[in-house]
C-alpha cells in the first residue's frame, strides 16, 4: 500500500503540474480551461506548471470580492468551492491530504531524511481551525479597501505552498518581479524555511497545525462515506498502528480521528486485521461508542 500511495502522490503531483511550456516562450503560467477546476489538495495556481486552481485561493478570492462595488459586478459567495470540497470531504474525509496533496507529498519526502524524529505538541492541532476561520474566511470578508475588495490573507501571510511552488519559481523566471517584493514575501520565505526545517524532524507539521484545507476536510471525518473501521476483538494493543501513523493518531483509541489523513499506513502495520478500510455502515445505537478507554 505504501508504494501505491507514493505512486499516486507522484502521478498527481506531476500530472497536475504538467504545464511545461513556460520556459519555451509560452505564457508564464497555464491559462487553459482546466484552470476552472480546483485541485483537491493544496497546490498553488501560480505555480508555472499548475494545470488546476487552488481551492483555498479560489474560495478566499470569492469571499474577498463579495463586497466589491463596481458597475456590473456580481457577488459570488463561492458555493462551487464549498460544494466541491464538501462533496470530497463527505465521501472520503482527509484522504486527499494523504494521497493527492502535492504539498503533503513534499512533506512526506522531506521527512524521510534520516535524523532523530520528534512528535508534535498535540494542542497545536487546533491552530488550523483558527487559520481556516480567520485567514480564509473572516479577514478576506472583513478587511476590504475603499472599493470593497478584500485580499486572500492565507495566501498573503502564510501559505508555504504558494511560496515554494508559486513565488520562488516565478521570481526566478521573471526577475522584474524582484522590484515589487516586500514584507509579505520575506515573511512567507521565513515561514517556509522554518517549516521545511520542521518537516524534517516532525511528520506532516503543516497538515497537522496550519492547513485550512485539512481543517475543512476534517469537519467531515465522523460522517464520511468511507472510513477506517476498528475491529475491537482483533486488536492485541501492540501499538503498531499508532507507531506508523504520520499524524500521531492512535487508531485503536481515537476512532474516526479528524487528524486521520487515510494514508492507510496503520492498515499495513496491523498484523491482526484489527483495521479495515471500507464503506461506513450505519451502526446500531449500542454499538456507536467503540472507543476503547486508553
Amino acid at each position: 500500500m505504501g508504494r501505491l500511495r507514493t505512486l499516486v502522490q507522484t502521478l498527481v503531483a506531476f500530472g497536475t503540474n504538467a504545464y511545461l511550456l513556460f520556459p519555451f516562450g509560452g505564457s508564464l503560467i497555464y491559462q487553459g480551461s482546466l484552470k476552472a477546476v480546483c485541485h483537491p489538495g493544496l497546490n498553488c495556481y501560480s505555480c508555472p506548471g499548475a494545470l488546476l486552481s487552488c481551492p483555498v485561493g479560489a474560495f478566499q478570492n470569492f469571499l474577498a470580492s463579495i463586497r466589491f462595488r463596481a458597475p456590473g459586478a456580481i457577488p459570488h459567495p463561492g458555493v462551487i468551492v464549498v460544494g466541491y470540497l464538501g462533496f470530497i470531504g463527505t465521501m472520503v474525509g482527509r484522504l486527499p491530504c494523504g494521497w493527492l496533496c502535492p504539498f503533503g507529498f513534499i512533506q512526506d519526502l522531506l521527512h524521510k531524511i534520516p535524523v532523530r524524529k520528534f512528535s508534535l505538541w498535540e494542542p497545536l492541532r487546533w491552530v488550523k481551525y483558527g487559520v481556516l476561520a480567520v485567514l480564509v474566511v473572516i479577514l478576506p470578508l472583513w478587511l476590504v479597501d475603499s472599493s470593497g475588495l478584500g485580499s486572500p490573507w492565507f495566501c498573503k501571510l502564510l501559505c508555504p505552498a504558494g511560496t515554494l511552488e508559486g513565488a520562488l519559481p516565478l521570481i526566478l523566471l521573471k526577475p522584474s518581479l524582484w522590484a515589487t517584493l516586500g514584507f509579505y514575501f520575506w515573511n512567507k520565505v521565513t515561514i517556509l524555511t522554518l517549516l521545511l526545517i520542521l518537516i524534517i524532524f516532525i511528520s506532516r507539521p503543516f497538515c497537522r497545525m496550519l492547513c485550512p484545507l485539512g481543517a475543512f476536510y476534517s469537519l467531515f471525518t465522523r460522517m464520511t462515506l468511507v472510513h477506517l473501521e476498528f475491529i475491537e476483538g482483533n486488536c492485541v494493543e501492540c501499538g503498531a498502528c499508532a507507531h506508523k501513523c504520520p499524524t500521531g493518531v492512535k487508531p485503536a483509541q481515537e476512532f474516526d480521528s479528524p487528524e486521520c489523513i487515510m494514508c492507510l499506513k496503520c492498515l499495513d502495520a496491523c498484523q491482526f486485521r484489527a483495521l479495515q478500510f471500507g464503506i461506513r455502515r450505519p451502526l446500531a445505537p449500542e454499538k456507536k461508542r467503540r472507543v476503547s478507554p486508553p
Partner: protein
Amino acid sequence: MPKKAVWLIIIFTLLFILGINSGELKFIQNLGNTICLSCIGVG
C-alpha cells in the same frame, strides 16, 4: 450507507451545481489565468 453522509452529499452536489449555474466556474478560470500577487508576496 449512513443517512447523514447521503444528505450531505446531496446538499454539496446542489451547492456545486448552483455555483456552476451562477457563473462561478468562469470566476475561478479568470482567477487561475492571472498570476496571484498575494501568493508571491507582492506588497
